[in-house]
């Protein structure tokens, strides 16, 4: 069953088309990633889906309700959290939970139970009377998520939820998201961090308001990145890079920590049917230098970042 169905949704501000006729579906219980660069129309789309912004044309069903005609019903069934972690800084943890719980109509036992849950997931048990302003960003983020889903909505929208959060807190946060999704909550998330997108079941990419790709991370990589990516560990990566750059076999060479990522040119692959050939070519090239020792060389799968950059560049090239 689909929990979100977007049909030909558009939003125009003056003569600027922010969202241009996009359509997609999100299944129940799915973690759905919504990717795009700044100003691509991500926030505008999420705001329309939450009933904050009225669409210029098109419609979407969120939890079975139309965002154009039943925004109030939509609001009862969703949770929303933005990168601002919109909590009241001058209220305590407890007061924030009481307020948001109250706004969603929770009281007595139900409020108590949910409060316990929020404190648990945010790791703030025993710190109920702390002012929210004195919490660290990671705690704030989890408390904001807890407040946003205090009414146990079927669908939650997260607009760049991990901005400015340290890696460990980000990881904890994504564990929470995965838990929610396992319990059947649909999670719709926008993010800049392409490594985070790997956690998503399915993703869509938009650029300048237009949907440019959709699928699971695996599918996207398979579909769009035909070039091989090879990881090379050796005694002197700078020297190796220098040698390989002279040969016309790579599209790009980038340094990742102590190793090199080599994106090979496509034609090499089409000329040589055997997979191991590229590795052999590189090994041969580098063995000419006696000082250089290869520790490890293997093919790796491309990242979503490669996919994203490829698609955006391709779109720009097509337009020209």
């Amino acid at each position, binding site marked *: 069953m689909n929990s979100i169905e977007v049909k030909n949704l558009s939003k125009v501000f003056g003569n600027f088309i922010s969202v241009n006729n996009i359509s997609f579906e999100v299944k129940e219980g799915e973690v759905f990633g919504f990717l795009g660069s700044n100003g691509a129309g991500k926030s505008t789309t999420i*705001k329309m889906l*939450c*009933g*904050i*912004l*009225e669409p210029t044309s098109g419609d979407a069903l969120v939890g079975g309700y139309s965002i154009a005609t039943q925004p*109030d019903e939509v*609001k*009862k069934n*969703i*949770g*929303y*959290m*933005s990168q*601002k*972690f*919109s*909590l*009241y*800084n*001058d*209220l305590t943890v407890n*007061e924030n939970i*009481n*307020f*948001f719980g*109250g*706004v*969603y*109509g929770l*009281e007595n036992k139900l409020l108590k139970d949910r409060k316990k849950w929020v404190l648990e997931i945010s790791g703030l048990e025993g710190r109920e009377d702390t002012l929210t302003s004195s919490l660290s960003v990671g705690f704030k983020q989890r408390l904001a998520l807890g407040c*946003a889903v205090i009414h146990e909505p079927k669908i939650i929208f997260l607009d760049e939820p991990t901005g400015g959060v340290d890696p460990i807190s980000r990881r904890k946060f994504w564990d929470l998201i995965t838990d929610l999704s396992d319990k059947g909550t649909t999670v719709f998330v926008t993010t800049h961090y392409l490594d985070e997108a790997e956690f998503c079941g399915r993703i869509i990419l938009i650029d300048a308001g237009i949907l440019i790709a959709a699928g699971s991370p695996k599918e996207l990589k398979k579909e769009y990145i035909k070039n091989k990516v090879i990881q090379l560990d050796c005694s002197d990566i700078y020297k190796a890079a220098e040698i390989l750059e002279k040969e016309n076999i790579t599209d790009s060479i980038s340094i990742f920590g102590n190793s090199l990522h080599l994106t090979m040119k496509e034609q090499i692959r089409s000329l040589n049917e055997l997979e191991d050939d590229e590795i052999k070519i590189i090994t041969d090239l580098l063995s000419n230098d006696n000082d250089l020792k290869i520790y490890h060389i293997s093919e790796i799968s491309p990242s979503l970042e490669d996919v994203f950059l490829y698609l955006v560049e391709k779109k720009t090239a097509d337009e020209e």
Partner: protein
Amino acid sequence: MKILRIFIIKEFIQFFRDPKMFRVVLIAPVIQLVFLGYAANRDILNADTAVLNLDRSASSREYIRSVEESGYFSVKNYPGSYEELKELIDDGTVFVGIVIPDNFESNINNRRTADIQLILDGSDGNKASIAAGYIQNITATFSKNLSLDYLQSSGVKVNLVSTIQPEARVWYNPNLSTRNFFLPSIVGLILIIITINMTSLAIVKEREIGTLEQLIVTPIKPYQMILGKLIPFSIIGFVAVILVLSVMRFWFGIEIKGSIPFLFLCTFVFMLSTLGLGLFVSTVSRTQQQAMITSAFLVMMPMIFLSGFSFPIENMPQIIQYITYIIPLKYFIIIIRGIVIKGLGFDNLWKELTILFFMGVVILTISSMRFNKRLE
């Protein structure tokens, strides 16, 4: 209803949590009132005066004594020359300069008109004209006594001199005290500051930190958000009004002659406009700074200058007088001065109250419409 209650509780927790806000809102008005109570005093009492007495005669000394005895002037300096007197006025040592020419007594004795020169520091025009009026009165009495003395000394019986003596009775504010006139209108000023500023700031703050956006995705209705903001600030406004009125009554001894419940009713009606304006300012401001500047320059300054609070409306050019008709504070000042000083009630003030009510309804409606639940 429940949501509204939760919202109001939240607003009060936030208000009391910030001790700075608390001080600004409840203590500042009282301090302001006390300062203004002493500063807003246009009455001339013991105005510093210098007399350049070139005559040095019995008559001139007599005249100086009558000036001093009036109680309005205190002669501080006797400069020796005109230049010295000029300097005293220039540097602000004295406010009034009186020059008695050397032929003062001889003119009187020869039954010619004797002149004196009066020099006033006109930088405060109002005060200067009041001082001139007092001197004229004193001088008229002095010359009347001179003529009576002359007539008597020349053997004329003056039992039956028919003169017309106006007996002025000043109603409501018999001492013509500017303090009595000013302090009640400060209630209006303080309400404006609290309600317009606080309401707009509180809403814009939520927009800045993103909680407004968060609230918009909850089932809260726009009217609940509006009431949730306006009710707490009208309560805080009322508390400030009660504080200010108490200081006025018990510190400055200005009695409220009219009905206090009626005064509160009028305050409430006036607050409809100011809260509405606060809401309006919040809809046109993106940041708290913008809200501050908008409310100060576009709302509060015109209100203060065009309401009759600082300048009498009758003295304004006709076209500006028309503008004052749309200033809610103008009506509230008429009302509160009427109630506090004159003891007027609904019978006399219904017109102003009705205008104020409709203004409030219109402003609140327009502002609420602008405060659209959907963020643009």
